[in-house]
């Protein structure tokens, strides 16, 4: 009687199956996501900055799609292939072994992806600030003539000053179309955040700080302004609507506002980058 050694049947090549399925799935899904999902990601196309953000988001989701595809393919494959058979015993899988090529590929691919995103993000930020507040000394300054508009936050309303028009202050933000705007965002009391959602602009409003953000408007439209920093009891109600209007409508609106502003002009502080309101007779 002689003992025969157990023979092992060569199993299917799981790695090859997963990789093929992943590549096929990614080749189908990535263009679909880039074409149909990316352009619909907020904030839309209300300004050059908003359009740039949509493009950035599209690039990121397009890069993200193959990663998600790999996870989904592996998850589904593992569920189908490695699940316990009905009535069978729970059997441990083969031990994990070092595989230098897989490790190398993993490190190289993830490093390249992260480094590319870091470089891409930095490049995009340096174009024109990408709609974010850059502090009092901005690095990414778009070239061209700019219209200065100051955003003044206080609990719980934003008002706006136009230094080019005698320091005119208004309750509503009206901007001319197709114009490069230099926003100077500040606060009279606590920390707020100016968020013109459809324009892709978001900048913190800190008391005593001139936070500069750039915006290139497109055609006439309305947009919403929200405070994006929890700033007290009525934070949730600190919103309003602004408008981008044609240059002729902007001029007409300015004349109307200047007439209304005339009575209070004598009491207004000189235009400044930041304000330190006084008196605060009752402040503790």
């Amino acid at each position, binding site marked *: 009687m002689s003992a025969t050694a157990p023979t092992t049947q060569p199993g299917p090549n799981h790695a090859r199956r997963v990789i093929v399925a992943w590549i096929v799935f990614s080749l189908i899904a990535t263009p679909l996501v880039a074409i149909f999902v990316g352009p619909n990601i907020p904030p839309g196309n209300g300004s050059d900055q908003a359009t740039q953000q949509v493009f950035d988001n599209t690039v990121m989701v397009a890069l993200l799609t193959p990663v998600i595809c790999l996870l989904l393919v592996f998850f589904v494959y593992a569920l189908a292939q490695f699940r316990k058979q009905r009535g069978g015993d729970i059997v441990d899988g083969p031990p994990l072994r070092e595989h230098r090529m897989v490790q190398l590929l993993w490190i190289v691919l993830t490093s390249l992806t992260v480094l590319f995103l870091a470089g891409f993000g930095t490049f995009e930020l340096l174009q024109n600030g990408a709609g974010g507040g850059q502090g009092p000394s901005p690095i990414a300054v778009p070239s061209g003539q700019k219209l200065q508009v100051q955003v003044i936050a*206080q609990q719980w309303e934003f008002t706006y000053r136009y230094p080019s028009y005698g320091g005119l202050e208004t*309750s509503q933000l009206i901007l001319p179309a197709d114009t490069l705007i230099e926003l100077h965002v500040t606060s009279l*009391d*606590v920390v707020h955040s100016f968020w013109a959602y459809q324009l892709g602009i978001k900048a913190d409003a800190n008391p005593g700080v001139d936070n500069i953000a750039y915006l290139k408007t497109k055609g006439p439209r309305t947009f919403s302004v929200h405070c994006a920093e929890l700033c007290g009891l009525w934070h949730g109600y600190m919103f309003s609507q602004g408008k981008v209007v044609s240059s002729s409508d902007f001029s007409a609106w300015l004349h109307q506002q200047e007439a209304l502003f005339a009575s209070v002009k004598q009491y207004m502080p000189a235009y400044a980058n930041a304000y330190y309101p006084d*008196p*605060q*007779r*009752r*402040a503790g």
Partner: protein
Amino acid sequence: MRARTWKLVGTVVVVAAVGVLIGLYVSKLTTEAGSPSYTVPVKTVNGKPVVDLTIETVAAVGPELSPSHPDFVSYLIRNAQGKWERDTVWHLPAHATVHVTIYNFDGASGLRNSYLARPQGTDGNTYTVDGKTLDVINPDDASHTFAVPAYGLIVALPGVADDAKNQCGYAPCALSMAHRTIQFTFHTGSAGHFRWQCFVPCAAGWLYGFGGPMQTIGYMDGFLNVA
């Protein structure tokens, strides 16, 4: 397995209980600290709704109207019986003309933003102070504002002179005491829920003058429930 089930059930119950407690706390804050709503009587003139809104501002609301915070600065509304109430949620009809009379018994605090010294959103962008029509006041003389930002309505209320005689200590304040009378008209639009507030940092002794009554519903702010 049974232990795991009990852990799961326990976690769900604890999370639900915490959620209910948070809900009760928020509810308590918004109801007790605030005030019941008040439906302003409506007249019809030429087929259109017209409302007379009479309110007053006081430096200290007093123990009768606010036992928990008698020293809070506050708005009060005069009800149909002529009694002053600390109600700051008011029901108004849509597309109505609202004639407002405010008796201000408080002294000046000064506006943080001088721009708000100009009346906006009223008929003619003017108002009357002690019978005199004005289109601006000195921002330092402002005691409070009545503002409904959604309507673009901002009215700065000048304060009682510091050396005025017979000043009111605790509310309700009689009209025989030193006060300013502010009158203006505005119009409600479509139905909605609009907050109103004071923009003057008038909360004495609180950080930047914007704590206490300025951060508590039912004193210097409220809602217009327009329907």
